[in-house]
């Protein structure tokens, strides 16, 4: 069967070289499936013409859900009939992307039965991506997966599949249980994940420490980043070991501290924890000697996104520190409060970060009932154009204090 592969001299070049080849992957799948075989032909044509051959998605999905399936059709269906529909299914990954081989093999078997046999492990948001499904097979694929305990993720103007770092499962720096929080929020907001009802997408990402391995500060509308507020834990013997093993503690640790709060006299390391910015550098550099404190929780930031439409944003601080304990009710209440406001006042395709900038962070805080604190800004305003909302008249009566 391999003999009737289309001739693909251009993309065959991408089977050469030491890095794993996606072309080889497509060819592996094409041995017993007509869809990837057509994909090889279509991709070769794109490489020849320097243009893509996919059309805009239509509205396709599974019964009762509005998200999780991205419709995709090619613009040369007569030439490549086996990928005339080639929809993407996003399957909600388990927290931390842990699998048993048993579960993963089941997903493979289901995808062999219903789809192209091609996947992304994983997509940018974190889902398992099943790449290339016909319209008819969407619902059967979904139900077969559901029987094995898997559900579809988000797409469109809904809560996108939340994701998290591996947190306490294998990292000594995790300041809260990211995998538990991610699972909890995902279950709490099932309706919002499957049924788009927002102005635009909303992403949660859970990182266990300020190293932010899931890029939550750049890629999520709500970034929940672990941190601590007591002292960095220190193992003095381990510090001595680092020094005697040749580490230049002054140059590699002290001089690079952004808070300038570490001293090293050649024997002893001291940290002024009141000036610590919780950046993680010293801990990253000396993992055997230094650890985050034990009064741990998270800093919650809002509003990051890629450029479309108002430019790229990083998230900014909403709550400087909060303890992260199930059922996380305070955070969920705040989320609902923000969603109500955004759904009421937000424009079509306006992310919450853009919405906040349009209405003003001060006004936004007032609406959701959060007090402004200095931690929310890099610095106070530089311009004097304050929108004061009230003023006094000569004949105003002084109000009684109550």
């Amino acid at each position, binding site marked *: 069967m391999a003999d009737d592969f289309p001739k693909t001299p251009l993309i065959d070049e991408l089977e050469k070289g030491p890095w794993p080849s996606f072309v080889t992957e497509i060819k592996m799948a094409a041995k017993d499936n007509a869809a990837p075989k057509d994909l090889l032909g279509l991709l070769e044509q794109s*490489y020849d013409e320097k243009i893509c051959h996919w059309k805009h998605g239509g509205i396709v999905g599974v019964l009762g859900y509005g998200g999780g399936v991205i419709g995709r059709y090619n613009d040369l269906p007569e030439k490549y009939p086996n990928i005339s529909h080639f929809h993407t299914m996003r399957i909600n990954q388990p927290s931390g992307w842990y699998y048993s081989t048993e579960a993963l093999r089941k997903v493979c078997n289901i995808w062999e039965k219903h789809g192209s046999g091609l996947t992304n492990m994983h997509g940018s948001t974190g889902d398992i991506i099943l790449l290339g499904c016909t319209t008819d097979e969407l619902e059967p694929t979904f*139900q077969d997966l559901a029987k094995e305990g898997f559900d579809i993720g988000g797409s469109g103007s809904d809560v996108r599949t939340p994701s998290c770092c591996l947190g306490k499962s294998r990292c000594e720096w995790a300041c809260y249980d990211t995998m538990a929080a991610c699972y909890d929020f995902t279950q709490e907001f099932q309706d919002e994940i499957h049924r788009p009802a927002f102005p635009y997408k909303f992403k949660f990402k859970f990182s266990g420490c300020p190293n*932010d391995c899931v890029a939550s500060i750049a890629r999520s509308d709500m970034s929940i980043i672990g941190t601590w507020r007591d002292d960095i834990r220190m193992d003095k013997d381990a510090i001595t070991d680092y020094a005697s093993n040749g580490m230049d503690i002054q140059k590699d640790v002290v001089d690079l501290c952004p808070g300038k709060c570490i001293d090293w006299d050649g024997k002893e390391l001291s940290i002024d924890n009141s000036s610590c910015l919780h950046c993680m550098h010293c801990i990253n550099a000396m993992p055997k000697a230094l650890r985050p404190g034990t009064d741990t929780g998270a800093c919650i930031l809002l509003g990051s996104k890629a450029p479309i439409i108002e430019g790229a944003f990083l998230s900014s601080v909403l709550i400087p520190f909060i303890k992260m304990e199930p059922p996380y009710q305070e955070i969920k209440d705040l989320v609902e409060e923000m969603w109500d406001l955004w759904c009421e006042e937000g424009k079509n395709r306006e992310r919450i970060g853009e919405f906040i900038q349009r209405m003003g962070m001060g006004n936004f805080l007032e609406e959701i009932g959060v007090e402004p604190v200095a931690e929310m800004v890099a610095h106070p305003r530089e311009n004097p154009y304050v929108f004061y909302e009230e003023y006094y008249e000569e004949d105003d009566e002084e109000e009684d204090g109550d």
Partner: protein
Amino acid sequence: MVDLKNRITDIGPPHYEQFLPPVIKANYGKWKYHETLKPGVLKHVSETGDAVITVRAGGSRLMSIQKIRMICDLADKYCGGHLRFTSRHNIEFMFTEEEKIEPLIADLKALGHPVGGTGPGITSIVHTQGWIHCHSAATDASGIVKSVMDDVIGHFEKADLPAKCRIALACCLNMCGAVHCSDIAILGVHRRPPTINHDTLRKQCEIPNVVASCPTAAIKPAEVDGNPSVEIDEDRCMFCANCYTVCPSLPLNNALNDGVSIWVGGKVSNARHEPMFSKLAIPFIENNPPRWPEVVGAIRNIIDVWRGDANKYERIGEWIERIGWPKFFRMTGIEFEKVHIDDFKHAGLTYKRSTHLTY
């Protein structure tokens, strides 16, 4: 027929606990420290005295079920049937016996998967779908990623750079790959305003939505041949493709004008410097499939110059902040052009507002 009565919905993902390797489950929340035994091999030690070895292998993000099964075979052989993936498409194998490290690495190598991606080096490139599966791609994703990784694989396997270098690729400005905070970002760009398909537009698109979608108000309602449609002030188009996202009759894809831009100096970690956006280094490189040698060469050049000049722990953005952008352009030989100067909202904040310059 859909069996409505027995349908399962809204169950969410499977609970992660059932997938954890026993040593991970037993030491959950008890990890004390870790060390890097060699690039791609980590050892985490618990308060309980237990230790877990992790071997990290690079993968192509696009994988066949056949390959996943082979990877499962390795996880069965070495890890009691458990494995995980990282946020950057790497595959991680965890076990407790150090003597399994070398045989596993050998088996991975035989399967075509290099081991590395830890510490001060390059790890797998986060990327989008490109010509494999996307309607708005200005370039392919997987092909460039494969070509770049073939070239920089030494830094994946050896971790021999001043600091981490995170590369990401997005095939258009929508940035499904959110590349805007990467040490090196490869970004597909369109350079021709949308072509208006008047015949289909009135059937496919809601004109008020299309007009409202344009951030620069370049799109206006218009009557064309007696039918409602739109007109576009091409001088105002900044090629964001937001109109195309809401209206399929306004494609921007164009083989003559699409290509790749390179951005540098972003990071998401809070370590040392605060998170930073990537900034424009090279505005445009023509698409040159199948291996985009000009893109590969440009990235190699930036990495080599940075590697030769940066201090330990200095990521590309931190290095450039120390030496200044003029020196970055001088050292890399990249030409500074008009388009490097921002002209979108708040552009003035990016002008140099001091005499802190190098000569």
